[in-house]
């Protein structure tokens, strides 16, 4: 068997290659992530460069409708920025914020969860009670609160500059209990398995057992949560920005674009809201589809 054939023979890879939904989702996810990451290279305009923007070109409809201009494929917004370019740049920000927030929540949650599950006792009780208390308050509310308080702490002139980081921290801090719970559950299952007991009898120290034996075996469920968490984090960022609590309009994310566009919806300028909204939904949908497939493929019970 060649390397590729052996790779294809793997159950998870096989499940992926035989699920068109998963492949399409992965393709959309990868393409949108690439498109957004390389936005400066792909986008026809730079929405942050004032020399490329003219108010005269403001509120132009998409290229195919009456009054549209060919260089602005999806039309322009109220300030005359090219919609396609702002969406690419906005999506880039949304994805980066989502990824950063999920990473923060995952690192925090998995670390605490594995320790909690492996050590047990008082440590476990304290960590899980904190998680329980936090889970009592819905994530988005908490994010709004942390975000609001975080901004209140910053001096006015720094608020815009640091808004992105405050949002990342707010979403990441609300995310961690989910990861902690999953990691803890998986750790407790693994820690009772005989290979961990064998490692203890060999005499390995607890931290080494946690890192070498337990952690790698808890990653599957964590990966599923992380994928679904990425979708939720992107939604959370968009929601915060839509509420005017998130990323400021000077460096808009998709949520900010929808918020701004929403003000023009009633006057018939539908494209300023419609295209960013579609971009957001397609992105989140693709990530969700991927997470959905992954949950089924990684669940040994379903195989």
């Amino acid at each position: 068997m060649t390397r590729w054939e052996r790779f294809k023979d793997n159950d998870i890879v096989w499940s992926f290659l035989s699920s068109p939904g998963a492949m399409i989702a992965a393709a959309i996810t990868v393409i949108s992530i690439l498109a957004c990451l390389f936005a400066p290279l792909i986008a026809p305009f730079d929405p942050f460069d004032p020399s490329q923007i003219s108010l005269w070109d403001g509120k132009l409809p998409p290229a195919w409708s009456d009054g549209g201009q060919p260089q602005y494929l999806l039309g322009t917004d109220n300030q005359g920025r090219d919609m396609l370019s702002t969406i690419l740049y906005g999506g880039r920000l949304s994805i980066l914020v989502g990824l950063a927030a999920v990473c923060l929540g995952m690192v925090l949650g998995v670390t605490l969860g594995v320790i909690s599950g492996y050590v047990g006792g008082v440590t476990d009780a304290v960590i899980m009670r904190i998680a329980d208390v936090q889970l009592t308050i819905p994530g988005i509310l908490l994010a709004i609160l942390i975000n609001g308080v975080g901004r209140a702490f910053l001096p006015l002139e720094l608020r815009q500059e640091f808004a992105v980081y405050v949002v990342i921290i707010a979403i990441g801090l609300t995310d961690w209990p989910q990861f902690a719970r999953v990691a803890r559950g998986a750790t407790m299952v693994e820690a009772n398995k005989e290979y961990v007991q064998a490692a203890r009898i060999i005499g390995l120290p607890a931290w080494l057992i946690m890192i070498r034996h337990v952690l790698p075996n808890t990653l599957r469920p964590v990966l599923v949560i992380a994928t679904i968490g990425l979708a939720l984090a992107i939604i959370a960022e968009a929601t915060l920005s839509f509420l005017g609590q998130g990323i400021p309009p000077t460096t808009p994310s998709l949520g900010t674009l929808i918020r701004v566009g929403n003000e023009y919806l009633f006057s018939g300028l539908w494209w300023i809201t419609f295209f960013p909204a579609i971009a957001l939904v397609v992105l989140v949908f693709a990530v969700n589809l991927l997470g959905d497939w992954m949950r089924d493929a990684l669940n040994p019970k379903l195989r």
Partner: protein
Amino acid sequence: MTDLLKISGLDVEFPTRRGTVRAARNVNLTVSPGEVVGLVGESGAGKSTIGNAIIDLLEAPGRVSAGSILFEGEELRGLDENQMRRVRGDRIGMIFQDPQTSLNPLMTVGAQLIETIEKTNNIKGAEAEKRAIELLEQVGITEPKARLLAYPHQFSGGMRQRVVIALALAGDPDLIIADEPTTALDVSIQAQILDLIKRLCRERALGVIIVTHDIGVIANIADRVVVMYRGEVVETGEVAQILGAPEHEYTKSLIAAVPRADRKLDRFSSVDYIEGGTKPFKRIDIHTHWLGQSRDVRGTGKAVEIENLNLSFVLQKALLKQNRKMLQAVDNVSFTVNEGETFGLVGESGSGKSTVARLIAGLYRPDSGMIRVIGQDVVSNPKSAAARKARRALQMIFQDPYSSLNARMRVLDIVAEPIRFYGLTENEAETRRIVGDLLDHVGLGASAALRYPHEFSGGQRQRISIARALASRPRILICDEPTSALDVSVQATILNLLKDLQQELGLTMLFISHDLPVVRQMCDRIAVMRHGAICEVSDTEDLFSEPKHEYSRHLLNLMPRMDLLGEARA
């Protein structure tokens, strides 16, 4: 007598992406009223598939692809779902392996019985309840009327299996298919359940198919035996003929592999029919080999000493100490294991034998008591260098070959872990050479090092576990039910390997098992445990010839009758 059930030429297929698996091939089988037919074979033989195929409950995507299933003269193959539903329960009853999961946890036993009776007997209300009480009585449940209102979790395992049998009987079926009905139960309960099934079979002139891997069960209950191997029936006959004078090579080696309780043999008879076998055991020179380098220090002659060991678990938490429900898992246990001997610890599940093993291994800490390993106290200061050093001389082999190896590590890294951690070799090249050597020695071949655990069978995984234990260069090996998850033929080869290693390396073994015949073949001395306490400690032969404690006698009486087994396995 006419046949109640006649299966002929039955083929069952499971289409998978790697091609079609034929789980049963050209199977012929008959059952007469009032007869118990044993369907015996090892895992993967296709025996459960037959049972499921009869009542059309094959797991997807399995399907019957050829043959016929005649039940009371009627062809069951090709019946639609509605017709089949009238056969299930009414005419054919089914009993599954695990009584813990066979009953709906949210419904009372009464509700489940009455619902089944109403469906099958066409009676309602008070009449159905009356019938439910009768059924519970028949399967030996006391105070049946009160028990109707109880939920499954309020019954013990054996009682639950009785309820399952009552449910299977509710529709007054003519045929019962029992799929490993006693495997999940303790020995003493096993015997009761088998007696019950046999009695019902005789009283009601039921046909019974017992699907099992356990020759002991067959010897106890079956009238006729059908032996299956890899989806095919290899031999059919009266129970005395099959057990006493088997004709087919597979049956011969299967029966030869059953450990005998009547006398001690040097080794288990080799099982030559089983393919994918392992290399013959090669002796090594212990004085020059890496494995022998740790035996410079001689101990006290006592490998493990235990004095007044106690451990209790909290069953139900409560704020006040006196309200807590505690389980005394280990109750004032004392014994000594001499260096170089094999010491057996036997008892039923929940007797605390595995807990004692885990206490010695340092996985639990005792509430009170003393454990000395090679003369070193390992309880008072478990983190001290001396205690750690003593513990290193002690390794463990576990029961479940599937969870005892980290699935994400290569066999090389699994076996090399203790060597690398303790720096037992000069360099990585030597580590790899030693690991290859160890794997070769346990009969796997050095090339196994680069593969992952999932590429190996259960028996092979146990060999990897043994290699990992040896890699610490232990002097004491704790074996916690090392073969109870394995097929009987594989069990024999693993036990032979352990015997060989012990002799060669002069290992001390603590052997934990519920299986008395196995213990008789393996151990020099035996401790019998019950409810966390030790009943008696005796030399093996003394225990089997004249047990001192009443409970030991009870256990010995429960051993499956093997007198039908002839000299074929000598």
